[in-house]
């Protein structure tokens, strides 16, 4: 609740599911996803667009949900970390991150995953440097990034072999 400001009703699709909801005009997209839709997998780390934990896919493009307002998502299609797996079957990137110990506390992981899903869609055969550059806007304090990079290269190889889109 935010009785101080106006609300607007927005309609959007998140992880393939349609939502229509009244939101305060100043609510961030991150807060909307987390607290209104209860999709708490998207994390908020800095609220100033540097850490990348809140990264989602906005019409397929990675975007910082802490720097957008919920009303800007009206009529758009979003993917969050909850939408990456195929039912119980993890996305190859999720599987690879586990196998390569590419996560510890896991707080940055949702933003890493959405960023890297976009990378592998656009560049199915990235080099280690491509991966480093892709996640250079995502901060991780636990892993030193090493497991994330090797996991991404491994997932890319498996996705190429398996024809996963």
């Amino acid at each position, binding site marked *: 609740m935010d009785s101080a400001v106006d609300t607007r009703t927005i309609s959007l699709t998140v992880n393939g599911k349609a939502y229509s909801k009244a939101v305060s005009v100043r609510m961030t997209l991150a807060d909307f996803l987390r607290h209104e839709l209860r999709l708490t997998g998207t994390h908020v*780390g800095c609220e100033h667009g*540097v850490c990348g934990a809140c990264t989602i896919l906005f019409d397929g493009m990675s975007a910082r949900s802490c720097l957008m307002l919920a009303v800007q998502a009206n009529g758009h299609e979003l993917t969050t*970390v909850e939408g990456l797996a195929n039912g119980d079957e993890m996305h190859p990137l999720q599987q690879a*991150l586990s196998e390569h*110990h590419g996560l*510890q506390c896991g*707080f940055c992981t949702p933003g890493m995953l959405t960023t890297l899903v976009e990378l592998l869609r656009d560049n199915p055969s990235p080099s280690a440097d491509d991966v480093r550059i892709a996640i250079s806007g995502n*901060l991780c304090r*636990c892993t030193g990034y*090493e497991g994330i990079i090797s996991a991404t290269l491994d997932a890319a190889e498996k996705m190429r072999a398996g024809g996963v889109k």
Partner: protein
Amino acid sequence: MIAPVDTRIVGHSVERLEDRALLMGQARFVDDIAFPGMLHIAFVRSPHAHALINSIDKSAALDMPGVHAVLTMDDIAPLLADRLLKVALPSPAYRQELHRPVLADKEVVHVGEAIAAVIAESRYVAEDAAALVFVDFDTLPVANDCRDAMAPDAPRAHHGAPHNIAAEFDMGYGDCVSAFAGAAHVLKETYWQHRGVAQSMECRGVVANLDPMSDVLTLWSSTQTPHAGKRVLCGLLGRDEDKMRVITPDVGGGFGPKLVFYPEEAIVALAAQMLQAPVKWIEDRREHFVATTQERDQYWDMEIAVDAQGKILGLRGLLIHDHGAYTARGVNIAYGSAAAITLPYVVPNYFLDIKLVATNKVSVTPIRGAGQPQAVFVMERLLDRVARELKIDRAEVRRRNLVPGAAMPYKTPLKTRGGMQVVLDSGDYPATQKAALDAAGWEDFKIRQNDARAQGRYIGIGVANYVEGTGRGPFEPVSVRVAENGRIHVASGAAAMGQSTKTMLAQVVAEQLGCDMSNIVVVAGDTGAIELGMGGFNSRQAVMAGSSAHAAALKIRKKILLVASHMLNVGEQALEIEGRVVRLKGGGAQVELAEIAKAVAGLPGYYIPGNVEPGLQATEHVIINDMTYANGTCAVEVEVDVETGLVTVARVVFAHDCGKMLHPKIVEGQIIGGIAHGLGNALFEWMAYDENAQPVSNTLAEYLLITATEMPPPVEFVHLESPSPLNELGIKGVGESGVIPMTAAVASAIEDALAPFNVNITKVPLSPPDIIALIDAATRKGA
């Protein structure tokens, strides 16, 4: 170097229990907790580093629609047993009491200190209203730099204080005066390692809810020490122990500061009690910069005495430690620094004078490494100086002084903060250094360096040794219980914050009870699940909780086999636990763990099989007072662009010994994370304060954390395993190892790269302008 593993789960890099939920977006961090009717807090914080509070006017904030309450000290004092948070560890070294108030009401002593809590229907409204709380301040002069603050006439960090010395003590042994008088060489230098911010990716956060049915006040906090938090809250709020519960949900990184109990935890708990409503406060990143504890500012004026061969004769000096505004933990960091500096080496005479100086900056408590990185930086810098002055290879100087492997266990004359003798329990430090140097190609580096210089490139190699005190005792309890459905429940006071604590405990228990990780459920950090606990800090949980888990699992194992032998009518020796059953070795008759659990739960009027005590539950508190000491050597290769000052870390080689590794991949993960943190401390992380102690690097755009593009190629590891004799599993802690030698190794490498300019590095971090300034200064001096 590594003994073959004869275990099936322990020692193997099994899948982590934590991963799936985290990867699927199904984990539950504190900000993921929601209750109907939940209220939200925003804090009014001091904009001044030092000021007196004349008055607080909250009327405009209270008039705002959606605001439920605005709390100041006047409102909460009648409900608190104490206005101050008295959490300082005991020490005779204190020279004044500097406890934090729950809310500041007369004086503020650092930017960010909490003055009032605004409670509203949403965080948005709470922040609007917080901006309307008017606080009338009279600003005061500040104690900014801890060295200046020692002067008798320096402005006081706390109004009316007799001086700024928070604590002082000395440490040492032998006879430095004689050692220095007779030494062939005495070298003198001042070193500085700058403070930093922990920057867990999840900031702090607290949710509290008072259950009207049970009258239990539950607090969910992103903390490393739930049991300590519960103890403080029971005392402050006057609640009975069974009416207060503290739970750590999933925690998005700790790195030290989350071990401290904070005013915000008290306020959120109190607000839930006062308003009879669930209440949430989530720290934002800007608050993390000014309200979460920091560490590392230390200035060391040091002298080292060596003989003609570079053997250390004595070490002495003065350590000035920035204590920050309050005592939020104790003298432990400075103590840890002073006790760490000599550890890898034979130092026959040692004396350090230690001053902890109060300043108007955020309070200082441990961050990953806790005083040890500073000490290693100083010792390793001094040894590089010795090598340079005596024209001996840097590694050779170290080799001549390292504690020899044959000397283990090596009784140092030092004592821990609890008065226990520091005994280096195991390890072979010269062998560790050799392993690192061999892997790094130390001997041949000179050739590569000369080739590079011929092309106008400046590359350098550095080395640093560390010994880390791990496994702080005396205990961490673990209970193991086999439920009547056969599931194995493990509970511990150990707190998980990303270091794979649940996996670690499950591994140790699974090894004894069927080797099925998927049959184990772990609760780490819930005061409702286990009575006692200390939590996560000091690289202690695998050592302490791991040992208790092992003991509890063995106890249950014995009981399971005894009961099963009665149920199956065979000898215990013929049985094994496999998966969720006990069976004859090699197959045949079997009984499920579930059936055994049911059998020992008892039936009215019937014998319990084997006449054992009822139930399949054991709680163990294995007591280990002595710390176990891990060690390692890090070699770093850098390239320095002498035009721009840019330092590129080309290579990191890490040889280390943390005893038996429970999970090699997790060990490596912990170390790499520490290395990344240490590289940040060496090259990037700068917590800037202006001359008024006003913090001026308050975003992650200004305070630089290392990103993927600055990380070196994959770390090259050499694992050595000398089992610790102090615990059954032979393990030593590793959570902080990576960070400890990094600033020292990087400085050594940069100095080596810039050897043609003859620079002398005495501080970290080193930004590109710092590097250019070093080159310029050395060039001017040389010209």
